[in-house]
């Protein structure tokens, strides 16, 4: 055990002062939103924060992606392995034009780094849940959908199931979608494209991460 640790704990344990009870368990008054309200608020908040949001039926996911590809001219697409329908979508995208290529995040970052930083135009990931109150997407990256997917490519398309929308962050914290103390390596709450207001309080998007965030809410 380090000397420093010992010394710090000795100081912390001087017990020079009496302790008081601080009650913070009482929950704050919260509104509970029904499904429709929650979805409406989520969309509103995401748009306020410069995300593009589309609400689509599950059957048209592939169509929507190919439309985005044509309209925006995104060429190199990055997929992980979590997304159901990824295979179909990849095939469809590649058949839109021979300029479009699809890359799978299936080797480690060190191998893929060059490609990630310099080639990929857009990546598509799933979303674990979304928080209506703040317009926030919850992502839990794993080996199938690594952390960099929502960070390095200039455009991030996030696919959210409508049934996964909750009202508040508190709800997520109280009933987390992970197992007790077994925390995933990384948990991300994403609420907008990367941005900064560090120059004269003027907001600029795409500071370091994605410049665009596109959210597809699938029914």
């Amino acid at each position: 055990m380090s000397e420093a640790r010992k010394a710090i704990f000795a100081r912390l344990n001087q017990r020079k002062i009496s302790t008081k009870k601080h009650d913070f368990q009482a929950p704050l008054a919260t509104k509970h939103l029904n499904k429709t309200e929650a979805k409406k608020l989520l969309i509103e908040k995401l748009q306020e924060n410069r995300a593009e949001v589309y609400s689509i039926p599950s059957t048209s996911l592939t169509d929507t992606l190919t439309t985005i590809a044509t309209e925006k001219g995104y060429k190199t697409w990055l997929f992980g392995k979590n997304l159901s329908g990824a295979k179909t979508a990849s095939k469809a995208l590649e058949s839109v034009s021979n300029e479009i290529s699809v890359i799978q995040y299936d080797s480690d970052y060190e191998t893929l780094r060059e490609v990630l930083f310099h080639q990929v135009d857009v990546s598509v990931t799933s979303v674990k849940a979304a928080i209506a109150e703040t317009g926030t997407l919850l992502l839990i990256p794993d080996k199938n959908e690594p952390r960099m997917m929502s960070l390095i490519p200039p455009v991030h398309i996030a696919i959210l199931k409508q049934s996964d929308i909750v009202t508040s962050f508190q709800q997520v914290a109280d009933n987390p979608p992970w197992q007790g103390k077994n925390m995933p390596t990384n948990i991300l709450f994403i609420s907008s494209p990367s941005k900064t207001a560090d120059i004269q309080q003027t907001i600029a998007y795409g500071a370091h991460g994605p410049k665009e965030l596109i959210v597809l809410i699938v029914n």
Partner: protein
Amino acid sequence: MKTKFSKRIELALADSQLRMNFRGAMDFLRNKRQLAFNDVEEWQALRKKGAAIRQDAIQRLPELLTQLEHQCQQNGIQVHWAEDGNEANKIILNIAQQHNAKQVIKGKSMATEEIELNDFLEKHEIDCIESDMGEYIVQLDNEKPSHIIMPAIHKNTAQITDLFEKKLGISTPSGDVDALIGVGRRILRERFEHADIGISGVNFAIADTGTLCLVENEGNGRLSTTAPPVHIALMGIEKVIPNIQVLPTLQRLLTRSATGQHITSYLNLISSPRKKGELDGPKEVHLVLLDNGRANISQDEKLQSTLACIRCGACMNHCPVYTRIGGHAYGSTYPGPIGQVVMPQIKGFKQEGELLDACSLNGACGEACPVEIDLPELIRTLRHRKQESSSTCWSKEVFIWFVWTKIHLHPWLYRQATLLMAVFRTLNLNYPKGWTRTRTMPKAAKMSLHRQVRERSKTKKKKENE
């Protein structure tokens, strides 16, 4: 005789551009926060809860830190303890040297500013680059941050355009913030791609799961903690919280108070290094726990609440002194009210005690603080401590208060004193100088209130007797 601090103040006040930049920025931030907390009742309830969460954590530091250490180690995070800045620097250098690191990329961290990590690493030939846009700008100009949330707030767009032109040789259209950010993005991405080590701060550390929480907008924090093969996080020991259930409250208070945002672009929770089979993330994560005076503060009944701070910056945004002189004039890591409270405690009154004078005790900071830290009371208490700890020699100030007390403790003396002032009321004194630099001297009344009340009751009695 002028002290250094007062000189810096005079210089800052004379810089009209600087004053305009700060006034504009502070008005902007205050308004944004106001809008975010427009529901007063909700704000008060949230604030109460936030304060209770933090105070509870401060009281339970030994327990929570033990738990945090244990849980982090379980998760594969390596935990280090540092008694002061010097130790923390050495720990970090050691890790860097083990990895033969030459390039470090940094996320925003006030704790690393506190220990002056950059200078230390540079001395050991490790290149340390700041990746937060504001920090990057400040570093480019060889400056220190002037605000804990918005490091480059003292500069306007034109000044940054010039800086980029001069230091990077890259010119951008005037007034084009997007172009400036684009330049920063390009240069820093290159660094992220090749850095050997990423260093970050920590906003909160969750004890029961061993999780580091980072709050940010730019994504540089995520990049610093994901791209390089090694991640080192430095945190003050007071930043520990018991569990994730308390995080939503603190997050809300932090981001709304800081920038008026309901949430930041990213909230990044890190609980372990890259696990087997995972494809990215650092292979090593180190957590350096820094004391640097904090443990002692936690044992001081009157000053303990200093540690509740969540570093939101609201107190400086609301401080009329900070608004006018800006962050650099304080010459300290943490400026503004929280700086005036923290710095004398971690560096001593000799070095930082004079910061305590620059406060009118108007209370705006305490009112704004999201975790109910009574900053004016802390400043007052520290003024008392400073006085008590100073040698007993007779300074001018001590003498003045000695005489003052004698007079005010003896009603008769006091009456003579007011009488004297009344008699000599027409004397045109130009003293004290501080007062008369922008004001005339008030004239004592011909007759004090005491005397007038006495005369009044005499006349009354006379009338009653007639």
